[in-house]
């Protein structure tokens, strides 16, 4: 049965690696729902957070083929229950409705969003949350004709208190040192 999985991939920062990783999904004809890449807390180690809809068996195969890429340190896959995750959305809404009533302000407050910037033409609102939260806010704001909207890829942390990558890197370093 297909469900949503979060793949986290830790890697070196090498040119072309993004293509190598996304190519694994292309070959398996599996669409990437969202992808976020940034440097992790470990200096020089980059983290990919990839969201896909697939079966458990496919998630396992994707991870093993991603790990096969030379510059990848480690990859994991998780269900949503195992992760704390967020996305950020930005909404540009015309300024006029705000002058005319307090409706937008009420929506923003209720949604736990915040106003980032106000100009004479528009207001930019920021909302952090799960996709359904940011989408719900979009639906509400769109009553006032949202001018622009953008949602980021997902960022995620494991609920597990053990930092698996740190453990993994310790073991890897010990193994590599033993080769000297």
């Amino acid at each position, binding site marked *: 049965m297909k469900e949503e999985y979060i793949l986290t991939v830790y890697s070196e920062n090498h040119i072309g690696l993004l293509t190598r990783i996304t190519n694994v999904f292309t070959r398996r004809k599996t669409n990437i729902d969202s992808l976020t890449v940034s440097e992790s807390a470990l200096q020089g180690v980059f983290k990919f957070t990839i969201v896909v809809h697939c079966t458990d068996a496919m998630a396992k195969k994707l991870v093993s083929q991603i790990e096969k890429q030379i*510059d990848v340190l480690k990859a994991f896959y998780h269900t949503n229950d195992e992760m704390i995750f967020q996305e950020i959305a930005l909404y540009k809404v015309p300024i006029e409705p705000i002058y005319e009533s307090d409706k937008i302000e009420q929506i923003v407050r209720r949604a736990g969003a915040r106003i980032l910037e106000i100009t004479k033409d528009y207001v930019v609102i920021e909302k952090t949350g799960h996709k359904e939260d940011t989408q719900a806010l979009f639906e509400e704001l769109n009553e006032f004709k949202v001018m622009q909207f953008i949602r980021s890829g997902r960022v995620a942390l494991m609920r597990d208190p053990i930092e698996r990558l740190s453990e993994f890197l310790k073991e890897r*370093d010990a*193994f590599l040192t033993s080769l000297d």
Partner: protein
Amino acid sequence: MTAKKITGSQALILSLMEEGVDTIFGYPGGAIMPIYDALYDFDKEVKHILTRHEQGAIHGAQGYARVSGKPGIVFATSGPGATNLMTGIADAMIDSTPLVCITGQVASPLLGTDAFQESDIVGMSIPVTKWNYQITTPEEIPEVMAQAFYIATTGRPGPVLIDVTKDAQFGELEYKYEKCKKIRSYVPETSIDPHQIKAAADLINEAKKPLLFVGQGIIISHAEEEVRTFIEKTGIPAAWTLLGLSALPTDHRLNVGMLGMHGNYGPNKLTNEADLIIAVGMRFDDRVTGKVSEYAKKAKIIHIEIDPAEIDKIVKTDVSVLADAKKALKMLIDNVNPNNHENWHNEFKKCDAIENEKVIQKDLYPTKPGLTMGEAVRIASEKTNHDAVLVTDVGQHQMVAQRYFHFKNSRSNVTSGGLGTMGFCLPASMGAQLGAPNRTVIAAVGDGGFQMTIQELGTIAQNKLPVKIMLLNNNFLGMVRQWQQLFFDKRYSFTELHNPDFITIGKGFGIEGHTVDKREDLDASIQKMIDHDGPYLLEIKIEKEDNVFPMVPTGASVSDIILEP
């Protein structure tokens, strides 16, 4: 080594020397000229084979690697030179062949500008390389080259492509070379879990109908002796994959033949009777498994494999041992009980008798008028005392040669297994001859594949490589025609070839040869080919519409293997 200032090109050539390279296959061009210029000073240390096409160069390097066990080295220029390598790179990737491909690239300020002969070979080759890298500064060359060799040759071997911009080739650096021993993100081999060995040994000791699959991993890890010891101790029959062929002598009493679509009747039929499959260094290719949902349903599966991505990829395993085959087998040998499995062997013998009567005798000792590929292969094997290196192309002749050539020694079989690349044989045979200069190399090739890389006759002639080319000519793309006959109602759509006079073409390149089309002349013709001092082209005109059986039809279970149409 003390540091000294040299050009990037010189550093690249010195790096190859440090890695013990003695043979390079390649084709020069504008973007790789500085490297070729640096190579000019090393004609005593390294042999460069100028092929007639970059595809010839890379297949040559593959043949060299497969026979010698050393990485194959390829040079090509940018753009079309580099893209002409792609088929061979893909072939090497799927067949786990270690290659280091060096491509020239336009100068770094021109990158991404659609400059003359610029192609994004790094981007293009990502899906078919184990690793690739673009060098844009001379200082990177020693470290990247060392990494390239380490990655290409360790773990599950594969092709690596290093693209070097022209300014990096011209620029200078203080050269110092250190072989790569480790990479943080790449650990090709880890320690074996003894619990997995114990679990595997328990299954082996309990099994009543166990069957061992020998893959190329045995050859790559030099585990031929361990496989032999293992099967002789346990009495377990062993079947081989296309690329596992020659790892175990053909006439070994426990060798029960080839798996897969055109494999032998016994191992296919009895895969679905086995209660245990022990797969070593093989990857359950779809040509081996047939319909996966019906595959080996009575068997528990032990998979010994060095590439973790292969475990559970096609067939769910009961015990997986992530390991080098040699090390795993050594540990297993100490943990398994002696046995003989006589009744189980008798089942294979019954299957052999059926296949022998219905297929093999007719192929090897035909009585009908036309020559068969089987008899030609049998005679060639006998005439070389079963000690030749066999290189094949792709198609009917490939399956026949793999079925009927006998082997005594490992690394004697070179074929394009996973990608099925027509045109592979002729260039690969010259590489095999360079990799094993003292052995007889027989290139068994069909008339279709021969014409895909026929220009490499020039390379063979120029380098006086004594390859014995056995052209099995049926004036058809034979395997496609067979499928058209069996599955497309004999609609032979564009598979008949009106061929040229191959012997005249060979002579034009300076290669002797002759044609044989009569059974009474076949033996002497093959003898003449083998005895000839130098390369030789023997064209054998075989029956036009002969078929290869047994066969597991596409989508069928391996136990539904058919012996005749």
